[in-house]
């Protein structure tokens, strides 16, 4: 099971990833309340293989639900960096797209994809569970086609992302041990 060979293994792996997405629902804003109906009996997202993950280490999909203050953005970035490749991000609500109703708020970021790579945006204020499931299906399509490579993108353009993060955080940056590693076991 060597991982650095594309082809049939990778194809099967993408199929498996598509059908088993473990969700880390990061309840930053009003979108957090849309998660329970999405997962439970009414809209049963588990039939697509979705499942709640307890910690970033186990999660594949980070759902950023709603506006991000600079304070919560820090947590989101640390969480995202603690997840393991392959990892996807699904951003809910117009707040994560362009600030939404917090368009001129002094501590709410306007574009999430400046700070972490986002796979799927779900517009709306707030998107209903149907919309979230729609977004998840779109994500599944991307995974199947092998285009959901956010982790690779983040690794390659790390300087650019760190520059944008530094513009927001100033000199209170996160410690760097979550993203640059040396050695291994």
């Amino acid at each position: 099971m060597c991982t650095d060979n594309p082809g049939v293994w990778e194809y099967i792996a993408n199929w498996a990833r598509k059908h088993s997405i473990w969700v880390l629902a990061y309840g930053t804003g009003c979108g957090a309340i849309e998660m329970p109906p999405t997962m439970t009996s009414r809209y049963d997202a588990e039939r697509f293989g979705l499942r709640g993950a307890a910690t970033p280490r186990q999660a594949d999909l980070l759902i950023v639900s709603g506006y991000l203050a600079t304070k919560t953005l820090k947590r989101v970035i640390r969480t995202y960096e603690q997840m393991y490749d392959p990892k996807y991000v699904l951003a809910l609500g117009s707040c994560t797209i362009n600030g939404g109703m917090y368009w001129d708020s002094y501590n709410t970021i306007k574009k999430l994809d400046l700070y972490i790579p986002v796979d799927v945006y779900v517009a709306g204020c707030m998107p209903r569970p149907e919309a979230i499931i729609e977004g998840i299906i779109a994500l599944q399509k991307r995974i199947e086609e092998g285009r959901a490579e956010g982790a690779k993108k983040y690794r390659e353009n790390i300087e650019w992302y760190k520059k944008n993060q530094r513009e927001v955080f100033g000199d209170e940056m996160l410690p760097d041990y979550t993203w640059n590693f040396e050695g291994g076991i």
Partner: protein
Amino acid sequence: MIGPNNVVLIPIIAGILAYFLGKIVKPAREGLTLGSVLAVCYLVLKLPFGKALSYSYNFNLPAYFDGLKFGTNGLSSFFAVIIVLSYLFIAFTAFALVKDKEYHGTFYLFFNIVAGSLLGIVYARDLMSFFIFWEMMTWSSYFLVIMNAKNPRKTGLTYIVLNVAGAYAMLSAIFMVYAAAGSFHFDKINHAVALMHNSKVLIIAVLFGIGFLVKMATMPLHIWAPDAYTESEDSFTGFFSGTLSKMGVYGFLLFFATLIGFANLKGVSSIKDTPTIGYVIAWLGVITSVFATFRAIVQDEVKRLLAYSSIAQVGYIVTAISMGTSLGIAGGLYHAVMHTIIKLLLFITVAGVIYRTGKERFSELGALITRMPLSFLAVLFGIIGLAGMPPFGGFASKWVIYMSLLKSHHYILLVAMIVSSTAAFLYCYKLIYGIFLGHPSSPELMEVKEVPAFLRIAQIPLMLALMIFGMLPGLLVPYIDKAVASLGFATSFTSTDIYTLSAALGGFNGFVVINVLGVIFVIVLIWYTLFFPKSKKLHRLDIYWAAETPDEDTPLHYGYGIGAELHRIPWVGASLRRHITTLYEKVAEQINGIASVMKDILFNGDGQIYMLYAVLTLVAIIMFLGR
């Protein structure tokens, strides 16, 4: 030929010499100790195992006293081997840890004397020398306890009071036996006891029992043990908990199995083909192990946890041997060996850790695995044995004890024993986590070095021994059989080769177990290492912390938290809140009150009343002499 009588003298003389020569040249103490250790090891291991020999000092004595008799048989050789080997390992530990303490000289003096007196106890063949060496052990270990104690007055007092009380209970029993048998010699006693009246047998048994239960720290006579084990000199504690407590086992077996004889005790009264007193003592042992286990879990001091755990483990031995069945005694002996090995290993390692870090609480230690990997491995082996888990030796001994209880139909006892042996996992995990895993409680823990070389010399053979006894559980069987035979029991193991251990209801093959484990482990490890991407080396603080960023002084070590749930479990919490010493204190208060009242009545300073006492005493004496 050099017999036991001389072997006993070697460490004692070596100790006394060491004390005085050491005043001139300090290393002489280590040198003499090493010499006596090696000599004793050579001589004891050279003695034929399990062959009954006897020697005696026949200097001219009054007629009623027929010499100090020494000798050996299966049981004596069994325990003598335990003693000399732990003497060896503890001596090595002491070389490393005691060298720059101010009580250097006295330590080696009393340490050697203790070793000698232990040998004297197991080789004694008459009650007089047995008692002499017993007292010697008690007193010299007393000095080793108070030598380094934080609270020497309380610790030493409880220790000495309880042990001396036990010893004098023994002494009175000895005189009762002498009055009946007319001799101190072991061979003459058995017949005399057989002829005795039941009540007298019972009294003797109870008195002897008290003496040995104190040494085995069985409830309710255990209160000296936690303090004494915790506060005695670190390098000696292993000997204390591993070997001195086994003297209680030896004495118990000697007196109850050969001198008094379980047959005679059954004659008094018996439950389910077990002597009633044995049954009661068995329950005492189980209760001890259960409560000591629960108490061990909630401790914060490392050595105190180990102290309570050894009380619990010796509780198993008490239960097993007091059944009076062949398999039970075999299990007790097996567990005695295993417990000695495990406790030596753990106490030596912990002594090294305390010596290196200077901290002795779980809440102050942590994350030492990167600094002292060998000690981590030692403690890992130790706890696998302590929890009685395959594939190591601890499992075999526990297995024999379970089988003995199943065979003699003491199911409720077995269930109670399961409670404590299941709860033991908790303190085992607390021991290894609190010291070696998790996060360092203070930054300077990350600079400590591995334990000294002498300790490593002691650790490695002990770990190997645990592994070998786990792989070849049948290895000890012939020796145990010899020891049991010398107590007049038939062998009870049905296994023939050294790979398997099988008795009453079943059996298992330790060799297969450890091989299956090893093979699967290696296969999985290879598969895992070759066919998967290397994992990233994560930073210590790169953990899931609810998306927060912990910094260096965030309290992340959970060392003391383990076992906090126990206080909330209704029955266990209640047992943890109460302590038996409070009961003793209440009793003492009452006695104080009564005594003061009596004093006011009797000694009221009136001369005539005193005269009356004198006259009454005189009359009483005359009446008794008159008969």
